């Protein structure tokens, strides 16, 4: 009797053991399937999102003829220029040869204009939006909420839509067809003010009080207390603003028709489109127009992600 009971027990033990093993191997299989699916997703994302980028970068070092010869069949040679390394596309797009100059290509100038406009707007925005946000977040002024409503309501005016009358206003100011048309309308932004109010409000008010007790005036409180303590927020909004100006197209398209003043987005839309048969040159222009902002993104990803939630609709 005792032996049968022992047997039974050992059989049960075996069953439990087997079941545990089965569960373990099932979990193993599930994990494997999970890993395979993840890798498939990785491949899909790389193909869909990086594929066109690699194609553009790789083929910007090829002549148009070679680009088209390599596009079919699709293999690694479609994307990567192992057969030739052709730098002329960049030289032409930048307008460094006499022929390219004759065709009016000068992306170097357009890049400098875009950079100038973006840096100017970021600088002005850091001054004026910071001031406005300081007023709303830190100063004890009665009934300032009325002004805050005025600021927030501005956010509901879509830029694309008021571009016709904005053109008329800027025209009246005599700024159409000048560099300043790309800068002056954007020196303050309700989105940035609103975002900075959030960043400033996180700081304890004791900081301001201590500074005032030490004899600082309002301006000194802002520059010596608030600004040094809100650097991450200020970087975030600066990146947002830089990206906005760098990529802005519709406004400079209508506001600056003078070719020698056009920023890079307008220049490529006029001179380097998919309708141009010189694809190598177009690819080079695409790389030149995006490299600054993409490189900035690669090095400051965190700030870009953080700026996402602030941006709202910018067009």
């Amino acid at each position: 009797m005792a032996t049968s009971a022992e047997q039974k027990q050992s059989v049960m033990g075996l069953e439990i053991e087997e079941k545990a093993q089965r569960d373990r191997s099932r979990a193993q299989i599930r994990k494997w399937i999970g890993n395979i699916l993840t890798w498939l997703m990785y491949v899909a994302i790389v193909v869909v999102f990086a594929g066109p980028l690699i194609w553009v970068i790789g083929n910007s070092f090829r002549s148009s003829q070679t680009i088209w010869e390599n596009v079919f069949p699709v293999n690694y040679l479609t994307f990567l220029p192992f057969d030739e390394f052709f730098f002329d596309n960049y030289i032409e797009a930048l307008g460094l040869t006499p022929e390219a100059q004759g065709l009016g290509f000068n992306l170097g100038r357009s890049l400098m204009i875009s950079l100038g406009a973006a840096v100017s707007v970021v600088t002005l925005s850091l001054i004026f939006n910071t001031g406005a946000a300081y007023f709303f977040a830190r100063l004890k002024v009665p009934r300032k909420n009325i002004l805050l409503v005025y600021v927030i309501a501005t956010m509901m005016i879509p830029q694309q839509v008021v571009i016709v009358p904005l053109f008329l206003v800027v025209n009246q100011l005599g700024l159409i067809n000048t560099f300043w048309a790309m800068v002056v309308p954007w020196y303050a932004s309700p989105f940035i003010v609103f975002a900075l109010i959030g960043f400033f409000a996180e700081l304890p008010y004791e900081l301001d009080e201590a500074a005032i007790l030490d004899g600082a005036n309002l301006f000194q409180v802002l520059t010596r207390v608030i600004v040094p303590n809100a650097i991450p927020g200020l970087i975030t909004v600066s990146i947002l603003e830089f990206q906005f100006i760098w990529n802005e197209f519709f406004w400079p398209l209508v506001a600056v028709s003078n070719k020698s003043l056009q920023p890079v987005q307008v220049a490529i839309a006029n001179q380097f489109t998919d309708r141009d048969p010189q694809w190598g040159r177009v690819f080079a222009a695409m790389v030149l127009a995006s490299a600054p902002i993409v490189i900035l993104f690669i090095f400051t990803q965190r700030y870009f992600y953080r700026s996402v939630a602030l941006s709202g609709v910018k067009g």
Partner: protein
Amino acid sequence: MATTTSNIPRVGRQRWWQKYRNQYILVGFLFVLPALINFAVFRYYPMAWAVNTSLWRYSLLRGFQEFVGIDHYIRAFTADTQFISSMKATLYYVLGKVPLTIILGLALASFANQERRGMGLMRALIFIPVVTSFVVVSIVWGMVLNRDVGLMNATLQGLGLPRMEFLTSPTNVMPTIIGISLWKDVGYSVIILVAGMRGIAQEFYDAAVVDGANAWQRFRYVTVPMLRRHLMFVSVISTLGAFQVFVPVYQLAPQQRNAQVIVYYIYQKGFIFGEMGYASALSVILLLILLFLSIFQIRVLRSEDV
């Protein structure tokens, strides 16, 4: 200044405050004044001007010519078939793009939210099109989708599939443009939704597991409801943005009637044909639509105070 400082403890902050109050408020306003002027001149005034100009026949060269009242609005809704068709194209774009943004954004976000090796790179790849300009994205996709020598048709042919007309066919052009802008913009929603998912406490998922919920049920009954505000934000932002689509149409399909969206039509009327008055009227119509949507957005976001 030194005497003021030493006075503070004795007199008390309240009275020191009173004494300098007017000066303080005046200086305070100097901080905010430039921004307020900007909004007045470059945002509110243009809006008012648009409303006024829409009531006039107005051109850049000749200025205000003749008061026409609401004739422009009547014309838009009764006589201008191109306006009606541009509204239809815009709605088609909005209704195509926004739901796809939500669905794809949710799918990609729940994938990209995992902590695995290489996931940071995936998130960056999905986000790179967001930081590139729509002009570049449009031109690049114009080449990828080129009928004869494009990468896409080469790939289709390599897979034994028929070649397609993406941008040259009137029926395919709008779905193609929706696809391109989806590719460009979906990363924006992914980042917002990932941030939202990070904010959901692990306890909810643990509780769901205890209740026997599988992965899909956890997604459907924990993630989606907890992300309600983020989803609302994404859908409103992408709706407002979609109503204002301009660049891909300008760049890729300016000749295609089916793709002429409202902003492109306004641009054409105002800056190509010089009918600024009429273009202003169309702007005001679009403005009203977007204002309505914004107010709706604020209402919804307020009512959902979780």
